[in-house]
């Protein structure tokens, strides 16, 4: 294929060269990709066959899908799933940052505590952890205040304190924080050590250096894998049934499917909602990434700050841009 088109491009050159006006841009025969079109057409045809077939297939029961997709129980369950995701990710991110900073700390006590925490929470399956959280009220039937191993001063029964929703949030959040800690640590390590030195030389303490200088720069590296974690968490909430918390999307749709003796349409309903929520979260990630890309590189799409945009357009010459790009690259 490509041989024949190359031959066509080359053959008119000696003859046509004389007749073409000398300064006109030469017409170049674009390289064709006929196989792409063939593959695309075949794929489209396959998809069409699948869709037409699926639409007629009784097992999918599209009537029930339509009936239950906006069912109040289902929308409420989608809300709970989103809430579980958001709350446990907030715990995961905040605790993850604290753990990562602890691991980088010069204080050996903080370092060891963070290490042990990670060892336990990364080393056991989240499903097992959730079952444990669900059994918390059984294991510790009361919270006692007082001297250990003596008659307590005050004692609360735990059954009233713990409810399945919050136990799920805590269980998912604590497990997530162990993974987030490693993501944050990767971000911290990606920041040039010179940044730490410069802040130190200015008289900034370790904590302030982390908060003001290192963490904001680490965010750029932290956000993409965190987006991954959020989406992963959205789906991990389906394990909440281990606690047992039964109002989230997967368990709720499964319960409905038991009522109507048909699991397939409600699997589709659940998938539609998971996909919809994921899409919304991806949009959020896009805007977060833009926010933390401030001052990075001299890429034309990033541009300087809004204040300087007009100035730089006039004054910024190419050699400056080259130097800035080079140094920006080195700094990273």
């Amino acid at each position, binding site marked *: 294929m490509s041989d024949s088109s190359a031959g066509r491009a080359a053959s008119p050159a000696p003859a046509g060269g004389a007749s073409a006006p000398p300064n006109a841009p030469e017409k170049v025969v674009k390289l064709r990709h006929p196989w792409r079109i063939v593959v695309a057409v075949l794929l489209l045809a396959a998809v069409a066959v699948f869709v037409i077939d699926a639409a007629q297939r009784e097992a999918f029961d599209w009537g029930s899908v339509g009936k239950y997709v906006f069912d109040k129980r289902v929308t409420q369950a989608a809300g709970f799933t989103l809430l579980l995701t958001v709350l446990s990710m907030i715990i995961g991110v905040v605790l993850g940052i604290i753990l990562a900073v602890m691991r980088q700390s010069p204080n050996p006590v903080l370092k060891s505590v963070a290490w042990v925490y990670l060892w336990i929470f990364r080393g056991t399956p989240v499903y097992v952890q959730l079952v444990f959280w669900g059994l918390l009220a059984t294991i510790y039937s009361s919270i006692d205040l007082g001297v250990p191993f003596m008659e307590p001063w005050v004692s609360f029964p735990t059954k009233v304190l713990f409810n399945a929703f919050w136990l799920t949030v805590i269980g998912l959040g604590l497990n997530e924080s162990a993974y987030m800690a490693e993501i944050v640590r990767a971000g911290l390590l990606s920041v040039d050590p010179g940044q730490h030195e410069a802040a130190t030389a200015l008289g900034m303490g370790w904590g302030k250096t982390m908060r003001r200088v290192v963490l904001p720069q680490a965010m750029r590296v932290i956000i993409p894998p965190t987006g991954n974690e959020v989406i992963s968490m959205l789906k991990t909430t389906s394990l909440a049934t281990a606690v047992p918390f039964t109002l989230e999307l997967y368990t709720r749709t499964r319960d409905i499917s038991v009522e109507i003796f048909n699991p397939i349409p409600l699997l589709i309903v659940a998938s539609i909602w998971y996909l919809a929520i994921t899409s919304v979260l991806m949009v959020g990630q896009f805007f977060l990434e833009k926010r933390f890309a401030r*001052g990075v590189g001299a890429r034309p799409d990033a541009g300087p700050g809004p204040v300087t945009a007009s100035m730089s357009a006039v004054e910024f010459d190419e050699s400056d841009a080259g130097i800035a790009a080079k*140094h920006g690259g080195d700094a990273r």
Partner: protein
Amino acid sequence: MSEQTTAPAGVTAAGDASVPMVRAEHVSKSFGSNEVLKDISLEVKRGEVLCLVGPSGSGKSTFLRCINHLEQVSSGRLAVDGQLVGYREVGGRLHEMHPKEISKQRRDIGMVFQRFNLFPHMTALENVMEAPTQVKGLSKAKAKARALELLARVGLAERADYYPAHLSGGQQQRVAIARALAMDPKLMLFDEPTSALDPELVGEVLDVMKELAKTGMTMVVVTHEMGFAREVADTLVFMDGGVVVETGDPRAVLADPQHQRTKAFLSKVL
């Protein structure tokens, strides 16, 4: 700039005009078994500009970093303005200071790095304002006024709102100098400030440093710019293999080096 920050009570020597700004006595420094500084003794007087030159690996940058305790000395005594850096001497023994106290000492010592190390997520103005607001607790308005003044002084008033990535190397280094000056240091350390610059940008940074020297700032400069050393420095120190080989008036040393190693080095760089 010229006003000395008053020394805390109890430290009698600090701020005393007769005390040298930097005094190093028998300073040694090892990284593992590798001894990079061997028994260095030297003084930097108030208002003096001292240039440290020597081949790479001679220990000059390490010595500079010891002055503000970015590196800890292994033995010997190193004092800035009469105060030991990073240690307290009680009964002939050295006691480590709390990191907060060391941070306090560093406030008075400005440092400029070879790779600028500007904070890339902050504009030039924010870079200069950061330490005064965060460390000294200066109000935003005051810090901003002072930062703009300093940026004007290094010739970058109209670049205040640029991020470092949109400034040339020379401009970034000038911002870095302004950032260090914003803490009103009594001593400025320069670690090869022009080594990472394209040749045509070296001049603008050296000009700013010359102006600074004229104001009477005490400066310790690690550099390969012999022209700058000849023109601006009061003292030239040649280091090699972790020891001070030769010290003296830069014009004299550059014109007529006394040691074989100095001669060999200068014949390569001049």
